[in-house]
């Protein structure tokens, strides 16, 4: 009589507020905005999409694409308006409905190129750089999201990814810092630093497991405790041991994938890169395969969905959870190591800047699947890289606004096209044997 009633009474509205209609209205508004904005632009403006960085006058190996900015935006604005309007109408004929849905999907796909073209209005913009930057900035988000998947698929909420990352960033860097003066070659020291980072994440995860599995503390509370602890401990370590000498260390070196790195354009931009960047793809494949193709993955998912059922089949629920939480912590540690060892070669207070929470958002948007989470992390990475790019180009728009748009669109698109995400059913519930 309680929850069912609420959802059902909303159906009585004459005009039903479906997800599709919300998107349609959003498209209409956005389309109208783009349409009118395009009129205010100089019709002579041309945005040139390039694919490689080169000095002036050098012949491109991949041809550039010139796009007349105002005409392009005019067309896109119209397309958005038409697609929005079509999707507001309930078509009786199946084929019409399919066409209008396809248009909506097209608008979604065109959104990012449109933002790029509009933002660069009149300038050259290098697509390859944008893609490579997006991937690079997505690294900690994607790896963090995989960490979340390992944990939550087993039924343990992990909002402590942020804290685990911070611990790993700090202790990984501290390790490197102290090994600098020794006779160890740089690569070995860096490898050790990354490993210490992983272990730091794993150890903190064990604390999370101890609190939330053994003592059945609320998992959100346990995660919050760890996040707060991380801020305190790492800034203490920095002040006591790192600050005195004002530390900086060599970043993890570039690594070229044989054969692939010889490809034109992408070879240099993507396949010659730093190790944790490549680990992102390894972790993507690893997480996907383990979760969906192995015995461990099947058991993990069962434990996260219906632990009692797993128990009646002789699976040790809490042992499964412990192991997954530990693995999750190590993966989060890898993401943390990215900040101090791969991206900057230094450690700063709170340097993860909420990436752990964005990683969680990516995990949820990706519906707790590695591939989905990776896609979501890419979108967030793109928005980061776009923000940086726009600041460099110096467009007239308020940068903060453009930086914000991809996030807003991510919300609309994912809520609209992908639908309600349902978490593993037993997530957050400690398992108590009767």
């Amino acid at each position: 009589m309680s929850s069912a009633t609420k959802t059902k009474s909303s159906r009585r509205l004459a005009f039903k507020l479906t997800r599709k209609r919300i998107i349609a209205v959003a498209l209409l508004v956005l389309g109208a905005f783009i349409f009118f904005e395009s009129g205010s632009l100089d019709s002579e403006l041309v945005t040139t999409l390039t694919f490689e960085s080169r000095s002036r006058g050098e012949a491109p190996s991949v041809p550039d694409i010139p796009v007349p900015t105002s005409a392009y935006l005019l067309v896109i604005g119209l397309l958005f308006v038409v697609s929005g309007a079509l999707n507001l109408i309930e078509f009786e004929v199946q084929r019409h409905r399919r066409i209008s849905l396809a248009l909506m999907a097209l608008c979604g796909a065109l959104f990012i190129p449109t933002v790029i073209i509009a933002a660069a209005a009149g300038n050259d913009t290098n697509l390859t750089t944008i893609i490579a930057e997006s991937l690079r900035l997505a690294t900690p988000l994607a790896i963090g999201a995989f960490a979340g998947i390992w944990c939550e698929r087993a039924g343990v909420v992990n909002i402590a990814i942020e804290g685990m990352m911070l611990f790993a960033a700090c202790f990984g860097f501290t390790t490197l810092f102290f090994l600098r003066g020794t006779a160890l070659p740089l690569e070995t020291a860096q490898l050790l630093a990354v490993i210490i980072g992983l272990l730091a994440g794993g150890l903190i995860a064990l604390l999370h497991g101890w609190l939330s599995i053994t003592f059945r503390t609320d998992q959100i509370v346990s995660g919050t405790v760890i996040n707060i602890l991380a801020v305190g401990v790492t800034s203490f370590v920095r002040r006591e041991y790192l600050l005195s000498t004002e530390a900086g260390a060599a970043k993890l070196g570039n690594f070229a994938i044989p054969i692939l790195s010889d490809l034109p354009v992408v070879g240099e931009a993507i396949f010659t890169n730093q190790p944790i960047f490549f680990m992102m793809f390894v972790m993507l494949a690893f997480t996907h395969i383990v979760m969906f193709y192995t015995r461990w993955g099947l058991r993990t998912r069962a434990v996260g969905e219906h632990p009692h059922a797993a128990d009646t089949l002789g699976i040790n629920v809490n042992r499964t959870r412990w192991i997954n939480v530990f693995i999750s912590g190590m993966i989060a540690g890898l993401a943390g190591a990215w900040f101090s060892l791969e991206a900057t070669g230094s450690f700063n207070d709170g340097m993860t800047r909420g990436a752990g929470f964005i990683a969680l958002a990516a995990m949820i948007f990706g519906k707790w699947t590695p591939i989905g989470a990776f896609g979501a992390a890419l979108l967030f990475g793109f928005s980061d890289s776009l923000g940086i790019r726009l600041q460099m180009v110096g467009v007239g728009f308020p940068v903060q606004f453009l930086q914000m748009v991809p996030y807003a669109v991510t919300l609309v698109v994912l809520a609209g096209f992908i639908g309600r995400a349902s978490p593993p059913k037993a997530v957050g519930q400690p398992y108590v044997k009767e």
Partner: protein
Amino acid sequence: MSEAPPVLEVRGITKRFPGVLANDSINLTLRRSQVLGLLGENGAGKSTLMNMIYGLYKPDEGEILVNGAPVQIDGPKDAIELGIGMVHQHFQLVDVLTVTENVMLGNETVSGPFLRRDKARREIQALSREYGLDVDPDALISDLPVGVQQRVEIIKALYRHADILILDEPTAVLTPQETRGLFKIMRALLDRGVSIIFISHKLKEILEICDDVVVLRRGKVAGGADPKQSTEQSLASLMVGRDVILEVDKAEARRGDEILNVVNLNVHDDRGLPAVERLSFGLQRGEILGIAGVQGNGQTELVEALAGMRAIEGGRFFIKGEEMTNASPRKVTERGVGHVPEDRQRDGLVASFTVMHNLVLCAYYQGAFSKAIVVDERAIADNARQLVEQYDVRPPIINNIAGGLSGGNQQKVIVAREFSRDVDLLIASQPTRGLDVGSIEFIHRQILRMRDAGAGILLVSSELDEVLSLADRVAVMFEGQIIDILSIEEADRDTVGLRMAGVRDDSQAVLEP
């Protein structure tokens, strides 16, 4: 028959929970290729006993013998190794996984770390064929009806080579047709040497399928019985410990004004497809209109629409002459309607609230229980104390969490709440599903008391016996429509059964196979 060797023996098993003696030196013997019926009221200790055999609980005293040898069962893993399989009352299936994944879980076919779904699938198909368990190995559990989910549970046990199968109230969730299908499967299992413990409180089923019966009452063995020499009456008395009146004794209906009038009602199901189509009927005070039909023919949607819980797409309905089409549940309730919902845990109770608060869910805001914006806990407690005694809710502790009560007692809480109000129209959907004979008898008497007090009663039940014994008129629903309304004199099992299958008049019956 009884010379068959014992495969499972329980000797002197005792289990104590804090404050309760759940099992008190229980003895029973299961013989090869036989069905042992385990009969008992809700809370008699049947499930506890089975959970000990399956290793989920540890007995405090006593021993368990499998094939004559004493065994130590420390967990489900041990039970599985001993060839014991259990189909739990609440299915232990993971909704988001496929049939194959559920079956192999915990006992996976692998090569290296990788799952071999193809191999497991072939094994499942072989089992399906052998035992007539029709199941699609690639279907998601959440897409399957309960009857099929139960088959998946049986396959799970067979896949682990179980030769002792415990079925904990397997028929509680099944339609009569599905029950017949289950019995066929059980017979196939017996032919292949599987022995079965069958838990139920449906006496007819026990008499039909079992070779031997053990009756539990309050944690003790109340006695054994030979089904061939027992009657429903004798089993019921053994189970409850007193004589039970199985036949409902009722007076002629004294009909009054029309209380409910339904005109051309159209209602959709959860997927947005028509579930009730142009349905019309009337109900008078002082009569019981029973709605019979195979489940899934629109009964659920009809009841939800009348209770204000589901949008009405077309048509209208009137209660005491006032139109209530698409009124809110509260408005319907305040119009003098009591509703015993089909799914008591989802729609009938707030499981995490106490008994006391559940008893005022539809009245807490009224003058008797609240002053201004503050609820009057003392009045609520007084009300609860009185109802708990009057409706025999066990244990009679008003501060207990409702979700912790047994199914029968949860139902009594709902019945107490809905029947104790001043109700003119009572909509009762599956009011006795999953209850034992004692509780059924009690609820039936309450329904008749309401009728004789002048309320109109709409009784929806998939138990044909229940409809036939209580109703004054029987409406049969088929594919969203009332196919026929019969007076109780015309409504015999055969006629109603034909209507339930969609046969409109008797001449057609000859043409049907």
